[in-house]
């Protein structure tokens, strides 16, 4: 298929960017979206132009690096996937596709479609861990009884890959789905309960400090999240913070 691409080009974090039109031809419907971008970049390199910078790593939906806001949606029109898993069969011959970086004040553009998501890392560092002795004398985790429900919910929360689609999608650029997932993952398990109070306080404080917005429960994040992280995790984080504050 032949496509017109409208892509955000920005030289570096301090330059002003703009949308630029490109044409790609003979795109196979079996290609992934990133492979289509590779075709475009090869074309640009051959004509001596600067290729479009975009984030990617695993290309199998587990690392969370690939970002991109495609036709007005994080990771494009499909559900439960990252951009590397988005297939070109979701588009038609002759389509115009708008491709933008994830937008949020806390995700500044580094170049073209690459954004700086280290704000997520700083939130993680503020409390997304448990302090255990790893000297070799660690207790066998299986010796602690955990309910199946809690184990499943913790596991579901832990599938968050920190991609930032929730923030990019949110009209308030709120990071609460991400932080909610990280808080929940530990809050549900006995090993995490020990530091639960400081964890939620510190992670929420860091989230606010990074300049993410306030959730208004539109639910857009849950729909666009590649891992189907549930809004229940935000409610749990709110409960945890209330508990930690009384």
């Amino acid at each position, binding site marked *: 298929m032949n496509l017109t691409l*409208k892509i*955000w080009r920005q030289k570096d974090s301090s330059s002003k960017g703009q*949308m630029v039109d490109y044409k790609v031809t003979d795109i196979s419907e079996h290609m992934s979206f990133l492979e289509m971008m590779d075709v475009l970049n090869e074309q640009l390199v051959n004509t001596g132009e600067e290729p479009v910078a975009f984030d990617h790593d695993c290309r199998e939906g587990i690392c969370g690096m690939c970002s991109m*806001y495609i*036709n*007005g*949606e994080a990771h494009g*029109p499909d559900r439960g996937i990252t951009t590397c898993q988005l297939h070109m069969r979701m588009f038609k011959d002759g389509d115009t596709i*708008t491709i*933008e970086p994830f*937008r*949020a*004040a*806390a*995700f*500044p*553009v580094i170049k073209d479609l690459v954004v700086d998501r280290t704000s997520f890392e700083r939130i993680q560092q503020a409390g997304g861990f448990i302090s255990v002795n790893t000297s070799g004398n660690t207790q066998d985790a299986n010796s602690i009884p955990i309910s199946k429900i809690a184990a499943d919910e913790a596991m579901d929360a832990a599938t968050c890959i920190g991609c930032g689609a929730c923030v990019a*999608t949110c*009209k*308030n*650029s*709120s990071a*609460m789905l991400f932080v909610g997932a990280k808080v929940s993952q530990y809050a549900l398990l006995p090993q995490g309960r020990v530091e639960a109070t400081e964890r939620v306080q510190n992670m*929420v*404080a860091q*989230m*606010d400090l990074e*300049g*993410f*917005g*306030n*959730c*208004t*429960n*539109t*639910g*857009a994040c849950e*729909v*666009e999240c590649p891992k189907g992280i549930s*809004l*229940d995790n*935000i*409610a*749990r*984080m*709110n*409960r945890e*913070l*209330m508990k930690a*504050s*009384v």
Partner: protein
Amino acid sequence: MSGFFKSSIGRKVAMALSAFFLMFFLLQHFAINMLSVFSPDTFNEVSHFMGTNPLVQFALQPVLIFGVVFHFIMGFILELKNKKANGVNYAKNNGAANSSWMSRNMIWSGVAILAFVVLHFIDFWFPEINTKFIQGDWSGTMDGVEGFRYYEELVHKFSNPARVVAYVIAFVFLALHLMHGFTSAFQSMGSTAGRKQTLQNIGKAYSIIIPLGFVVIALYHFFNH
């Protein structure tokens, strides 16, 4: 605890608390107004009680005013903060793909309600304050009207078609605001109940029945007199 209400989540909880209070108030207001359709005498009695009871006037009324003002000021603060968190706007953004119109436009339905609240205060609240606190007339009566004046005043207000239209439009926005707000408030309070079918149904019923009821009351008085 003071740190809690300065956090993003604390602000949302405060927002939800004020919203719960407003929704409870609305229910009470609705019940009293309904009386004006079924029994003008009872409506007069209850209005006089509400208008002259010291507990209502000096305790509940200030709390209500505070609740309304707090809710919309906090609404504006959150909206400004969220706009700042956005950074650059998308050239193409398909919000309808993942969220309801109501949820994305709470600030606009809120602004419409605020405009109505201003009109409503000019219509009913300021004249009441003037009569009672400035002229010192707590009798609840009026020249040329037998018994209490409240029903007559209400009917008089709704004889103006422009006012009736403004009220109807405002209640449409109130319905839209509540359609998202009702369940949203539970989520903000950390409860997942708002995501369950039961509460979604109750929320839908509340956000349609209450505003529709107010509209019916306004239309009833307009066409009946």
